[in-house]
């Protein structure tokens, strides 16, 4: 087994190779505005570090979010297309699950929260590092403060809003290495992973910008 994992649902552009028992190589860069530019070079680097070519990969693992849409799609479109070109399966993993897995928190319950911008967080509750309870949601921290009261909270979304998450801790962003390890564990256990489709959790802003189709620089 050789899994290529990638995630672009948080400010991190993160890529890892996992051989079923351990992480072979990995790369993480934090730059929320350059997912598109950074991802392919990172894949290239991770493969080169392992002395492997992409066609050695037997499956692709991708973080399906939730996350800011533009960056999120870079990872999903890349994973989707690798799957198409290589003829290998593409597995989706909830990005928050990757963070929960990486948190190292043994018991629960706890919360994972990432930055959803617009003063909101993407978040979910966990019983333990492998077990999410309920679907991920997007909310204003103040609106869920009572619900998460007294719980440890993992991720940049928690660190950003200490009023709602007084017991906030790292890691800030997901790493593809933990995503891959979680996926490898679930696949080995014969579990079904998610379809590689995005978790947007919000409807698109249905606004036609002024001069909506003007693409010629003036």
């Amino acid at each position, binding site marked *: 087994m050789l899994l290529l994992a990638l995630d672009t649902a948080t400010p991190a552009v993160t890529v890892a190779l996992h051989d079923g028992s351990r992480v072979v190589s990995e790369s993480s860069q934090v730059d929320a505005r350059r997912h598109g530019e950074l991802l392919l070079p990172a894949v290239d680097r991770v493969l080169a570090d392992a002395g492997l070519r992409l066609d050695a990969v037997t499956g692709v693992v991708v973080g399906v979010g939730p996350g800011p849409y533009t960056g999120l799609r870079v990872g999903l479109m890349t994973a989707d297309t690798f799957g198409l070109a290589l003829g290998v399966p593409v597995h989706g993993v909830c990005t928050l699950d990757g963070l929960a897995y990486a948190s190292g928190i043994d018991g629960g319950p706890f919360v994972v929260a990432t930055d959803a911008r617009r003063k909101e967080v993407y978040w979910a509750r966990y019983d333990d590092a492998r077990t999410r309870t309920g679907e991920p949601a997007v909310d204003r921290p103040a609106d869920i403060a009572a619900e998460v009261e007294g719980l440890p909270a993992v991720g940049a979304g928690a660190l950003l809003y200490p009023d709602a998450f007084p017991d906030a801790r790292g890691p800030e962003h997901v790493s593809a290495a933990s995503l891959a390890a979680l996926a490898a564990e679930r696949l080995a256990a014969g579990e079904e992973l998610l379809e590689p489709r995005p978790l947007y959790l919000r409807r698109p802003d249905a606004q036609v910008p002024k001069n909506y189709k003007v*693409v010629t620089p003036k």
Partner: protein
Amino acid sequence: MADSRDEPLVLGIETSCDETGVGIVRGTTLLADAVASSVDEHARFGGVVPEVASRAHLEAMAPTIRRALKDAGVSAKDLDGIAVTAGPGLAGALLVGVSAAKAYAYALDKPLYGVNHLASHICVDQLEHGPLPEPTMALLVSGGHSSLLLSEDITSDVRPLGSTIDDAAGEAFDKIARVLDLGFPGGPVIDRYAREGDPEAIAFPRGLTGPRDAPYDFSFSGLKTSVARWIEAKRAAGEDVPVRDVSASFQEAVVDVLTRKAVRACKDEGVDHLMIGGGVAANSRLRALAQERCEKAGIRLRVPRPKLCTDNGAMVAALGAEMVARNRAASSWDLSADSSLPVTEPHVPGHSHDHDHVHEVSKENLYP
């Protein structure tokens, strides 16, 4: 003639607006032109909603690539390159196509060519009428652009002579259709009504046609306002709006200016060919009037069939094939989507540095 199998086999991906296009060409021969459009999802908003378009591109990409390969009857491993629209266009929408193209080229171990959307609109005519004459004068008109471009070499030299200073021609069609309650997009429906109307019924203004105005620039904002006011006045007076005459007179004002300026540019620059592309080139009156005026001026008109005028992947593949044929530098893996890629850059060549040094690369390090 060279064996056509020697010509480059290129797959092109276009996602600059609301069409997910994947085309495959061999040299100047069209093999496949698969398009998935999200236009219906935008109709109720009266214009393209960027986030709706981006979401639709992500869903449509893999099926559209599969369909294009099947239609062309070729195998992905036989491709000589992958081309993609790097800009200009909607930033989020472009990024989906660029991500797909990079992943596809990387996985197949093929060169990647990030190309310019506007140059692709010109180059697509090679699929219809054979190699472009050099130089080529091109009038590009769509919902996103209205420009006069002069190209000596479509892979390296595209010069803008003029463009719209406010709205694109296609935008004016959409706006007037909205005022007339005809729905979105406005181009085809206005064309249809105009066929039964009198183009001289109402004298709408011709923007930027005065002796001191920029000879090759366009302006459709004033026309748009003038038509809207005329309609509102009719309504305020409790009279019926003559939709056919309004459509015909408005359309005539647009295509009169477009063709007049294009023909003048050809004469001034001594170019004996005019190429018209972009979605508005599907307009029947534009085609007819351009034909008439070009004939009178001794200019050969080249307009691709309507399906090749609107945004599609075949046009991107056509320009990509030309890049391969002329040995242009491929793009690098850190190619970015550039929503305002200048028309003067037909493609985005990679830099000479190793990937390890990409952070050091500035504009000056790029190939010319």
